[in-house]
């Protein structure tokens, strides 16, 4: 694998292969020595044009546990406001000998540009681009689901027949996009639940059902309910009247959570707005995978970095 830019481009074999390697990486996390020498001498740059401490430290831990040297490059602000272009930044990293670049960028497609421009030879991992994709988040979500369902026998398996409900701001969510494609590839059935204002105008090509009725979707007792974070800035875009109404209609509150079977997983990519899209009872319940998702994030990112940076030949 040369780059990891989107889940849409992943084949089932590639996706399951990556999740299987993540299982091996997870085993390393349980050892006393949590470090592998695999990427010794390699340099991974975390190129973050957007603040995201959670994602950055997850990638940082992943790279360090594979013995790579990590350089954190915080380039907040777009190229236009900052004055330095993505091209100049890329060429700087190239000159520094970066083997892998983990990029988080507010503009959709920026990782694609970095990977295809010829400015840099490094493998590129998309750590979230605009409202496009966040592939490692979807992979860690799938990894978390697969582990909960199959346990120690997860290796080699997909998510066939698993029913997943994703709730929230689909329109602006890179997490939702990456999940939709990956879940389809792994054989799961996805329902997207959101107010009509927060769904793209044309989702005919998306392998997912669209619903505007959370209660009806939960009544079908899905295997997984994934709540998305509602961004503060959406409150002012006339996407919905106010946070109270959003919470009442689209939030996983105590009442809705109580109706779910005890086997239904409750997921959230974090950071959570407790009391808005998810009630504390749901977030802290044994059904919640939130903390597992964080731990699994490191394993999945180790797998991704391993696949991108270990092979010298394609």
């Amino acid at each position: 694998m040369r780059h990891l830019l989107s889940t849409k481009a992943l084949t089932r074999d590639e996706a399951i292969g990556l999740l299987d390697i993540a299982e091996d990486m997870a085993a390393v996390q349980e050892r006393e020595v949590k470090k592998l020498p695999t990427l010794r001498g390699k340099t991974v740059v975390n190129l973050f044009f957007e603040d995201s401490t959670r994602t950055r430290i997850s990638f940082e831990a992943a790279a360090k546990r594979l013995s790579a040297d990590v350089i954190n490059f915080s380039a907040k602000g777009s190229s236009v406001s900052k004055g330095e272009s993505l091209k100049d930044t890329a060429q700087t990293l190239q000159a520094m000998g970066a083997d892998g670049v983990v990029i988080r960028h507010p503009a959709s497609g920026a990782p694609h540009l970095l990977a295809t421009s010829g400015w840099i030879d490094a493998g590129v991992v998309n750590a979230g681009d605009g409202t496009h994709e966040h592939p490692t988040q979807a992979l860690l979500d799938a990894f978390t689901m697969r582990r909960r369902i199959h346990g120690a026998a997860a290796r080699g398996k997909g998510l066939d027949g698993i029913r997943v409900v994703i709730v929230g701001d689909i329109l602006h969510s890179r997490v939702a996009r990456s999940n939709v494609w990956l879940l389809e590839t792994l054989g799961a059935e996805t329902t997207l639940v959101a107010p009509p204002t927060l769904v793209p105008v044309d989702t005919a090509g998306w392998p997912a059902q669209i619903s505007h009725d959370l209660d009806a979707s939960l009544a079908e007792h899905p295997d997984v309910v994934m709540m998305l974070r509602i961004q503060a800035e959406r409150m002012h875009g006339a996407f919905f009247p106010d946070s109270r109404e959003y919470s009442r209609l689209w939030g996983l509150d105590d009442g809705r959570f109580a109706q779910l079977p005890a086997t239904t997983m409750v997921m959230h990519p974090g950071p959570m707005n407790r009391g808005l899209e998810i009630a504390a009872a749901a977030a802290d319940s044994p059904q919640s995978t939130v903390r597992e998702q964080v731990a699994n994030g490191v394993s999945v990112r180790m797998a991704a970095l391993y696949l991108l940076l270990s092979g010298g030949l394609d």
Partner: protein
Amino acid sequence: MARTVLNQADVQRALTRISHEILESNRGSSDLVILGIPTRGVDLARRIAAEIRRIEPGSTIEAGSLDVTMYRDDLARTTTRTPHPTELPAGGIDGKTVVLVDDVLYSGRTIRAAFDALADFGRARAVRLAVLVDRGHREFPIRADFVGKNLPSSTDERINVRVAAIDGEDAVTIEGGR
């Protein structure tokens, strides 16, 4: 054309002999850990463990596996390798005698990587090496303690080890060269 060097019976005989030798040098199966190196070494290790249980009634020894992919020194020189699980016996390796089992001993690089991997799991009292075939051409000062068959070969020959659990039959063949 491939030429058969060891057939089914030869392989089984070799494993039985290696098992006896391991027991003899370790004075029994206590504090013994048998670890196969994926992929075929794992099956050979399981069979050696089974032999030991047969030879020494009361022994409950089970083989584990030690994946060395992440410790190899040639990761940047080949296509990406798919790692395999590492499974250690419940007691770990601290203070134990570890016998590493692999199918073919060649350059010694795999075993060198195995030493690094092993060190990350604990401190073995001693580490021994058992291989089904030793074909020579070492690039490290490594030698096997237990050898099924010494098979001097030229570097342009290919040694293929087939084991029943993976390939449907036991056989060692050699092909290529002059």
